[in-house]
């Protein structure tokens, strides 16, 4: 019974996932850039934390945070689905409305494929290089260390699952906004910097000024990078970690409800472009 209900969504997820796994050249190029960028950031933060400063994060935690951030960069909801945007502009979106499925869930399934296939392609070589190759060359100090413990590892896995759910909800919201704006560019320009700064991808959130912390810990982007990677390094532990998972879940729900509401309105006013 349940299998029958999820069948269309599972099918579209699988098809998109398999398709996205084929973009190996892009993954390779991204891998090169991210190694370079990650190495520079590790050196900068190592220099910062070398002096007698009271840092809210240890160097070990900071380096793990940076490498994981580079490995899972594609988990960030950077942009709307370019193909859906093309369909909105060309009018092919008419066919999307012809499918006997829940429109939001259908696009969400597409987004989940995007937020798993691409990060998987990028993360695998990054984790291998920084977590296995560097330590075996005696450079473990600069590479990705193991999780802070068994509890941290388990909470990290749960948090990463919630990152996929949250990031997909973000992505679907962007897709829905494209139906209204007709172009993904404006949406992308607005959301990409927000995602990079507020997720902790640029600078780990705990290293930002103290007066910003209460806000930073409750805004939705923190659930994309900051929570799971601090859990990994043992910076976020115990009930604080569980509360962080809760915040990831709550933001996911809020974004899903918001996305559905906007989609309903957008589709009711849909005008198919070009007749």
């Amino acid at each position, binding site marked *: 019974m349940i299998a*029958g209900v999820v*069948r*269309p969504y*599972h*099918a*579209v997820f699988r*098809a998109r996932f398999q*398709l996205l796994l084929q973009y190996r050249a892009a993954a390779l190029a991204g891998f090169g850039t991210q190694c370079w960028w990650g190495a520079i950031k590790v050196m900068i933060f190592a220099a910062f934390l070398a002096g007698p400063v009271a840092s809210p994060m240890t160097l070990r935690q900071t380096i793990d945070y940076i490498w994981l951030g580079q490995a899972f960069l594609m988990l960030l909801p950077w942009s709307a689905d370019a193909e859906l945007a093309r369909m909105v502009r*060309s*009018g*092919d979106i*008419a*066919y999307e*409305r*012809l*499918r*006997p*499925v*829940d429109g939001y869930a259908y696009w969400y399934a597409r987004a989940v494929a995007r937020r798993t296939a691409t990060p998987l392609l990028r993360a695998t070589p990054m984790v291998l290089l920084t977590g296995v190759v560097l330590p075996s060359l005696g450079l473990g100090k600069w590479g990705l260390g193991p999780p802070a413990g068994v509890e941290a590892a388990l909470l990290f896995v749960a948090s990463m699952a919630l990152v996929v759910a949250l990031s997909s909800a973000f992505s679907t919201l962007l897709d829905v906004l494209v139906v209204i704006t007709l172009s993904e560019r404006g949406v992308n320009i607005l959301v990409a910097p927000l995602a990079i700064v507020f997720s902790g991808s640029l600078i780990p959130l705990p290293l930002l000024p103290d007066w910003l912390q209460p806000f930073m810990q409750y805004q939705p982007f923190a659930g994309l990078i900051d929570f799971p990677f601090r859990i990994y390094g043992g910076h976020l532990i115990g009930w604080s970690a569980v509360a962080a998972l809760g915040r990831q879940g709550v933001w996911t729900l809020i974004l899903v409800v918001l996305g559905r509401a906007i989609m309903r309105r957008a589709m*009711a006013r*849909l*005008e*198919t472009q*070009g*007749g």
Partner: protein
Amino acid sequence: MTEAAIVVDRLTKTFRVAQRRSGAWNALAGLVRRHYRDVRAIDDISFRLAEGELLGFVGPNGAGKSTTIKILCGILEPTAGQCIVGGVVPWRERVRHVARIGAVFGQRTQLWWDLPVIESFELLRDIYRVPPARYRQRSDELIARLDLGRLLGTPVRQLSLGQRMRCEIAASLLHEPRVLFLDEPTIGLDAVAKLAVRDFVKTLNRDHGVTVILTTHDMHDIEALAERVIVIGKGVILADGSLASLRRGALAERRLWVHFAGEPPTAIELPGAVVRQRQARSIELAFDPRTTSAHQLIASVASTFEVEDVHLEEPPIEEVIARFYAQHEVDG
């Protein structure tokens, strides 16, 4: 009379179109205050369609054909009016409705561009939740009838337009809909592909009883397929009936080609007929069949001149429809 498959009652759809006059000043002014104009895409349209009927929907560009189809498909909501397709109001119960209809929009594609055709079919199978055994039987049948066997492994982007259209039609029928909407299915196709599409649609309607609504600019599609035609212009229905009745109303004349054994006569005076054009050895006469009978005309031509051959023609259907548009001042 079988039960009505489709009832359309006073359907109206208005779009808001943003207006801007040219010039930099007006562009700036538009940032502050926008002007909108309401455009009536369709205006108070009503018709009924029985189950198993094949309806041709004709009209110039922008007449409202596609808008009507999209409302019937549940994609657009009308501004006013009502319609019921197979007992369901399309836009109110969209999911239930679209599971039971099929549609092909000739200028768009429903196949996944990067995937081989067969994978698109399998995706549609899962999206429409078609049971596997049922799907095998149905897809085998469609693949055989549309001759798709050799195309199945090809990615959609590499298909020719004619090949793709055959695949599109198969894709729209995998879930065995009882109503099929075809919006310009023959657009851009070559003669062979057009014939294949027409043939298939005809069989589908005649042998399988599928109700079909077809829009097209190719009047030969209509001539080959539709017993009933609705002509729509500027959002209103201008005519609803058979092609023959449309012909009678718009351009009833018939034409007689007379081929002469020698030089054709320079002047030809026949009651009820006028000369339309001359060629080296022949003359085309036009006459009104309601006042002049064809055999009288032929008899009087043959008795006056040395005639080698004659043949009768009806004005091409394109000319009839062009005349009809001109009469109703809706030509484009």
